[in-house]
């Protein structure tokens, strides 16, 4: 009984070991199949003939480009954050010679005058108040 149990345990160990050995291979195979599939889908749409021709080098090139883009994006975000900080700082500074109370004391703005129309043209005569009774 003990032998049988020992044998079963051994078989189980061997199965687990086989499974551990088999998993990296299966994953690699799946990634490879998926990558080739993805490249096969991307290549005709991007027109990148070299990508389709050489999946492995294209993949690494794409990864490099993504990495460079990510770096650029990160740099831009940093710059934007810095500029937003500067704008906030300037906006919070008081304008020299003014204060909220001084602004409140200013007289109200005059009403906006009506738009000035184009002047009438020079005329030859005028018709108006009748001034004749024969």
């Amino acid at each position, binding site marked *: 009984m003990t032998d049988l149990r020992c044998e079963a345990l051994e078989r189980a160990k061997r199965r687990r070991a086989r499974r551990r050995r088999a998993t990296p291979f299966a994953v690699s195979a799946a990634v490879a199949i998926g990558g080739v599939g993805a490249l096969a889908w991307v290549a005709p749409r991007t027109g990148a003939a070299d990508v389709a021709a050489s999946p492995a080098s294209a993949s690494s090139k794409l990864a490099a480009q993504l990495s460079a883009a990510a770096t650029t994006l990160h740099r831009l975000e940093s710059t934007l954050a810095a500029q937003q900080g500067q704008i906030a700082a300037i906006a919070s500074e008081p304008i020299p010679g003014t204060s909220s109370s001084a602004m409140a004391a200013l007289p109200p703005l005059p009403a906006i005058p009506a738009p000035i129309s184009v002047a009438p043209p020079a005329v030859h005569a*005028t018709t108006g*108040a009748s*001034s004749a009774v024969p």
Partner: protein
Amino acid sequence: MLSTEIRGTEVVGHVRAMATDVTMQVCRGDEALDALEDLVAVALRVFRTVEQACTRFDPQSPLMRANARPTEAHRLPHVCFEALREAARAYRLTDGRFDPRVLGDLLELGYDRSLPFADGDLHLDDRSAPRRPPLPEWTPQFRAETKEVVLGPLPVDLGGIGKGLAVRWASEVLRLRAPDHLVEGGGDCYCSGRAPGGGPWLVAVEDPFGGQSPRAVLELRDQACATSSIRLRNWCVGGRPVHHLVDPDSGQPGGAGLRAVTVVAPDPATAEVWAKALFLAGAADIQAAAGDQAALWIDDTDTVTVTAAMARLVCWGPQ
């Protein structure tokens, strides 16, 4: 009081007649300038001729002699005879809205002489001018062969048409040899042909509230314009404000709600008659009364309204 002068390629003439300043502007065309000057002088004299024949302020004028006994036949000078015949024609044309028999009403209102309107604040407190019933139909009789007229039971006033007729007849004198000219008399104009430079004549419509800027500018060619306005001829009777544009149906100043009416027509007398008739329609009815005429009116609220026909002639003004 009558003058002419040569200005470049134009002749300009002035005369004081019919209680107004008359101006003529004549483009040279093919005529010699000195010959044109003589022609302008003749045209200017037309105004004096009409004034002498048709004035109601001279009891010896042909019109007033006929008015003194209106039921009798009177042989009249050609100008007075034609003016009365045109007045009768205008009466029929406007269905009686233009009626020269309002003379009695004007006298009741105190307008029996040249009044100092320009001075403003004119009060005639010894008058009452009560409302009266509408006048019966006007049926004057004319005998063209003898130039005789029977006015009917009531005297007449040619103030509402005389100036327009003078502008018409003066233009007819000029037209024979100077087709491009302007005749302007106290607001009644005739614009013949082209203005100097070849474009249309430009005529400003005065602001009846007294503002310096015109309310509109009209482009006219072979057209007349006239305005009936109460800006100048208004006064007070017994504390009541009145003016000279009398409604023949009531004998009272008419044109409720209106300040001025301008009409453009092919003929100056027609324009003058319609300006008065449309004014008397009042603000409530002028739109319907104007029909398809070229008319512009300004009401008591200072609103300018133009008919579709007038809108085509406005080159500056109400937008």
